[in-house]
């Protein structure tokens, strides 16, 4: 999985590189448009175009029949039935290409989230570094047999530390005094784990931003799939996850200053669908 992540990171870094200076609405606009067109082509080559075309033509014919024989109840009813049946056929025919499209969609959305969902920590702000320890290591820490410490690169000051009663959770507060991509190093016993902390104005960090790295398996999707940028600790590591707070607001940062439309995922859907529809006649795709 991590090799795949590295590949997708590399691909996306490459894609985003020429658009580094663009405002988010423009870079996301270009990406969404390209993805819309690529998805359209993918649809074309993974769907049974001739069958979809046939079904569409059938619908057209039935509609015409309804118009011509609108006084004839028998014809109208059978035409209506035909329309419903053809529509259902189109729905069935579009399932395989949609399933195929779903596979690249997950890493793709994860990559876009990394660039548009999260904003860097503002300079001067305080972030909590929330570390979850493995049960075994927490036990040791509680009995003073092992220590856990946080080191931060220059420009980030570690303010204080807190441990839960069972030591399974250890939090630090850090203040970021200088913009840039900083590195946090968690030292647990004789092992170290690093997590990046982006600091600065929104859009000032060209790389993807991730709030968390983890080896937990939660919900339906593998976290390593959704958080592809930083390697997760191995399953038996003393550190289970490292999370930094303050990177994401409850509402995704606005791409455009318009409510709802400004949400990157809504914006992405609208632009990609728009471009797919725009290029549909050009590539002669039937959907």
């Amino acid at each position, binding site marked *: 999985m991590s090799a795949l992540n590295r590949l997708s990171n590399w691909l996306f870094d490459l894609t985003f590189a020429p658009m580094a200076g663009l405002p988010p*609405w*423009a870079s996301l*606009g*270009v990406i969404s*448009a*390209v993805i819309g067109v690529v998805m359209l082509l993918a649809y074309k080559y993974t769907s049974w175009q001739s069958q979809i075309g046939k079904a569409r033509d059938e619908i057209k014919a039935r509609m015409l029949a309804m118009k011509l024989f609108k006084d004839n109840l028998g014809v109208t009813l059978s035409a209506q039935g035909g329309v419903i049946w053809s529509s259902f056929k189109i729905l069935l025919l579009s399932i395989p290409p949609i399933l195929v499209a779903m596979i690249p969609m997950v890493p793709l959305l994860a990559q876009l989230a990394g660039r548009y969902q999260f904003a860097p920590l503002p300079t001067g702000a305080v972030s*909590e570094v929330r570390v979850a320890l493995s049960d075994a290591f927490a036990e040791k820490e509680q009995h003073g047999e092992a220590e856990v410490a946080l080191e931060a690169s220059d420009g980030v000051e570690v303010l*204080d*530390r*807190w*441990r*839960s*009663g*069972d030591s399974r959770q250890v*939090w630090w*507060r850090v203040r970021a005094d200088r913009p840039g991509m900083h590195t946090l190093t968690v030292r647990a016993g004789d092992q170290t784990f690093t997590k990046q902390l982006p600091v600065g104005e929104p859009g000032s960090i060209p790389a993807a931003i991730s709030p968390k790295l983890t080896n937990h398996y939660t919900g339906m999707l593998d976290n390593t799939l959704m958080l592809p940028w930083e390697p997760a600790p191995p399953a038996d590591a003393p550190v289970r996850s490292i999370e930094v707070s303050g990177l994401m607001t*409850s509402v995704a940062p606005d791409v*455009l*200053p*318009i409510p709802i439309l400004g949400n990157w995922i809504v914006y992405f859907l609208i632009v990609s669908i728009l471009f797919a529809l725009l290029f549909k006649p*050009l*590539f002669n795709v039937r959907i």
Partner: protein
Amino acid sequence: MQNAECRMKAICRTERDCGSTACIADGLRSALLVALAFVGLVLPGCGEKASKAEGKKVIVLGLDGMDPRLLRRLMDEGRMPTFSKLAAKGGFWELGTSVPPQSPVAWSNFIVGGDPGAHGVFDFIHREFEDGQILPYYSTNETTYGEKPYEMFGFYMPMPWQESSKLLLKRGGKPFWDYLDEKGIPSRLYRIPANYPPSESKHGYVKALSGMGTTDLMGTQGTFQWFSAEFDDDVGSPDDGGRAAPLKYDMEMQRWHCKLAGIPNPMVIAAQGAEMTIPIYIEPDREESIARISYVNQAPKWGMDQPVEFLLREGEWSDWKPVVFLPSPFDPGGGAGSRGIVRFQLRKADPPELYVTPINFDPAYPSGKITEPDDFAQELAKGVGPFYTKGFAEDFHAREAKIKIDLGGYATELRLFDDEDYKTQTQFVMDEGKKLLTHALSEYKDGLLFFYFSSTDLVGHVFYWEPEPGEPEEFTDHPVRDDEDAETYTKSLRETYVQCDAELAKVLEKAGDDATVFVMSDHGFMRYKRKLNLNTWLLENGFISLKDEEKRRGSLNDLVDWSKTKAYSFGLNAIYLNLKGREPQGAVDPKDRDAVLREISDKLRATRDPLDERPVVKTVYRTDEVYHGDYAPGGKFDQHTPDLIVGLHREYVVRLGGTGDLSLKWIYNNTGEWSADHCIAAELVPGILLSNRKITVTDPNLTDLAPTILAEFGIEKPEKMTGRNLFAPPK
């Protein structure tokens, strides 16, 4: 593919390098630029109406309770250069205040350009009658209760067609900005006092954020919550507002927990109205003085529950945290719940003690009407983030709060805020005000801008203790602080004043040369050492009769024999006759009204302090002489109007009447945390007025500002206003 290339050309409308992605990107970029330009130009303009002020600007900076003597002293010391500069350009005058000089009354005078007879606000607290009982209400707003909801499956089910409870603005009269609104002149009012809920803007030119009088989410004037591991279940309430509750330890989870009280659940049928609460958890570190505080907000409407978790060191304050009280997804509000914001102070880490501010409305999702129009609150939240929306944001109740507990057989008194805590908390309010002012100035183009700071008043009540040259020695020492302490804390009020200087500098910079600028306060300040209980005075002077001579503790309703009672006090400075036809059990015949009023007034004026034989009362105002308008005695709406207003001499203040407790002496030493006040004779506590233009009257008054502002925009003085235009050429 031929065909495709051809079409691509049509999209790009250019010959160069067509068919490449760069070309599509170009096309896309220009399309998006056009869209963005459209959005940028059209959308922000949508909510804003075109101003007809033609560039005319009037800016009013309202500084509650700024005292002219202290200000003069600081200006002379050179600590307020911007004030001095403004005074040199136009002038600095004492501003006549209202009778009585209480903030809601004074600001209402400012708002309607007339005395209390024009707006019907006579005191902080008014009285009303229900089933023959006297009950208090906050004078500038009141909640009316709606229809009783239907009961279903053991729950209340309020239906959309039922009348729900409503919050009403009780200040009468027409605010001066309504006249500007009619003429298309924009007004922006930030934290405007005595205007909650904000009055409606009929023409859409008014944007107002309500100030003093605005309640917290619970509908009170400010209920803090105080949790301590030292409290048990029957800890009771602190004496002066606020709540106290225990923190309990959960061995298994290794954490402390308490319940943050919210608002009554409108759907639960219970005698007391079951309260919605949020469990709060505190987990101290096992060695260091730091703890994690956590709770979960239920998701309003849809979405996921939001956990809120943060660390606090001992003594540290959190920033604003959201709290959500959700009765049920099926509640009449559509499951939106009531949303508020609070700040936490971890007073002790282990065993913990926690202070939580009163629950303020969340301006980003206001659950109450705090602005006009409604979305102005969100606009402000977007501009400056969350802020105190409550009227009295400075938590003086927390400074005064104490609780008696039993500590292993010993009675101990626990206190909440000390001076430092109060200073810290009031500075939060001040800092938010500064941020909001910067935002307000950046948004302001023309028309009226009013901006209000409260800290000059509420810091003053606790920290004002200025020695006056040549005053009697026995009054220069502080009632509860030693000289050094008094000196130290007078400094923090001086610092608050000095901070206002920098704020004025921001205002003057924006104003430039063409704007008319006013800096004003609603009243000044006076320290006090002695407190009066007017109802005990009335009792001892034969105007109040008791049912049982021995029983003096309780409410007036239980103690007083109304059939023999001639007058009683309610609120701070007001005396009401027990008049037949007006009061439920009236005893004074209207034809005797004049004689009884004269008798009370004469006796009050003759009253001497038993301590040193000094006169206690300076002026007794008859409302039928000093008030004019529909709310004055004899007017259309005079049923709530007091008959006398008592104006005390300096060094005295009235204890809040109406709650009864006639067991207190009529006069006694002040031993409380408040050392200064202004609810005395109006002549003794004028406010301030500074302007960049010279005024033409010699005795400016609060009521003059409204007609002057209107005149600046070319609007003639409305008939109902009794104030004067301060710039009118002398006749």
